């Protein structure tokens, strides 16, 4: 009887282990390296992620005015990820969904996931450009075929978490379309992009301190 129950327990453990190791299409990020996501997107991270306490923009340079975009409250940090993404599909993605970029961090036995609070073109903090592209700082007008978009993602996170990873599966809030520009686009058979990118370190942008993680 004991033997039978032991066998059953071990078999159950096996069944749990198989999907855990089989399902995860993930990669450990090296900054600056390009990765294919499925065959429908090309992705790279120019720098390691970093945390700040405040995101601000120069409102109008001539008046020397600064607007605070987001501020971390007590026990919070703002985690910023700069992402370069190239749409390899022949369609235009209309209204990129922030849920396309879900960040996860671990603490003890818990995983917390976050949606970006800010999702903007990365443009060296020029507020006028940000307003032009992204009036509420979390909108994206379109992602056309082949164009590389340089995006800044900002998440409001709990700083005690470790082993950060971002799950990228681009989706369009307003759908996709072949009707773009003067060219005529045809369907192409491509594998969808659905991949986890794991970070090995996070930089504190204010102190310069780098926290390294051992990927488990």
């Amino acid at each position, binding site marked *: 009887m004991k033997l039978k129950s032991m066998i059953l327990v071990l078999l159950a453990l*096996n069944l749990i282990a198989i999907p855990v190791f089989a399902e995860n299409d993930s*990669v450990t990020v090296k900054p600056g*390296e390009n990765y294919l996501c499925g065959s429908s997107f090309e992705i790279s991270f120019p720098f390691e992620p970093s945390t700040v306490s405040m995101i601000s923009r120069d409102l109008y340079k001539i008046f020397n005015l600064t607007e605070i975009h987001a501020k971390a409250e007590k026990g919070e940090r703002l985690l910023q990820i700069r992402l370069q993404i190239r749409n390899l599909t022949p369609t235009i993605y209309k209204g990129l969904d922030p849920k396309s970029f879900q960040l996860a961090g671990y603490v003890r036995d818990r995983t917390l996931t976050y949606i970006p609070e800010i999702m903007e073109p990365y443009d060296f903090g020029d507020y006028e450009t940000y307003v032009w592209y992204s009036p509420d700082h979390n909108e994206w007008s379109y992602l056309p075929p082949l164009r590389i978009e340089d995006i800044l993602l900002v998440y409001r996170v709990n700083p005690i978490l470790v082993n950060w990873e971002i799950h990228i599966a681009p989706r369009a809030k307003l759908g996709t379309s072949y009707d773009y520009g*003067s060219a005529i686009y045809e369907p192409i058979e491509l594998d969808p992009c659905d991949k986890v990118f794991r970070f090995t370190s996070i930089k504190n942008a204010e102190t310069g301190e780098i926290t390294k993680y051992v990927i488990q």
Partner: protein
Amino acid sequence: MKIKSFLAFWSASMVLLLYQGIISVQGSPNRSNISSNEVISNFPEILNVGSILECGDYQIQIMGQPVVTKSSNSIIADLDLKYLIVRIGISNTSDQTKKWLAPNSFTAQETYLNHAYGTYHLDYIMSAKASSGFNLPPFFSSIEPGKMLSTVLVFEIFPEAENWIITFSPSTFTGETSSENVKFLLPKALKQ
């Protein structure tokens, strides 16, 4: 004994699964595995400068390195459109004069990695002798038998492609359409 062998088998299978897990994490594809200059087998070949391609009553050749340049039109420039400019020579190999080759004889298609994307129609044709501007009548002069017409094709494009495929399917304003057509990859364009 049975328990021991089962436990050994189970441990081995777990180790194997763990190993596969690590491999699948580390072995994910990245861009370095893909040659950006790879010529895909079903893609047309590059037509190098000076090489000649036959197409029915015509021969076509590239007369100089293609150029991708910023548009001088501010509205177009705002939309990130650029011009793909390529100088070509078209020879008439028949014994009859060919009149007024139509702009729809040419299309350009952008390519990236192993896929071809949008197809662009010809926007402008420029005489090789013209000093400036793209505002010449959008058709060629007649091509006498055995003669070559040198001209410049201009496509308004979004300039994100690695390479460009040109399709030449001759048709004229006089309604003469060739059943033959040729496709070729342009040599690497010079970006200005």
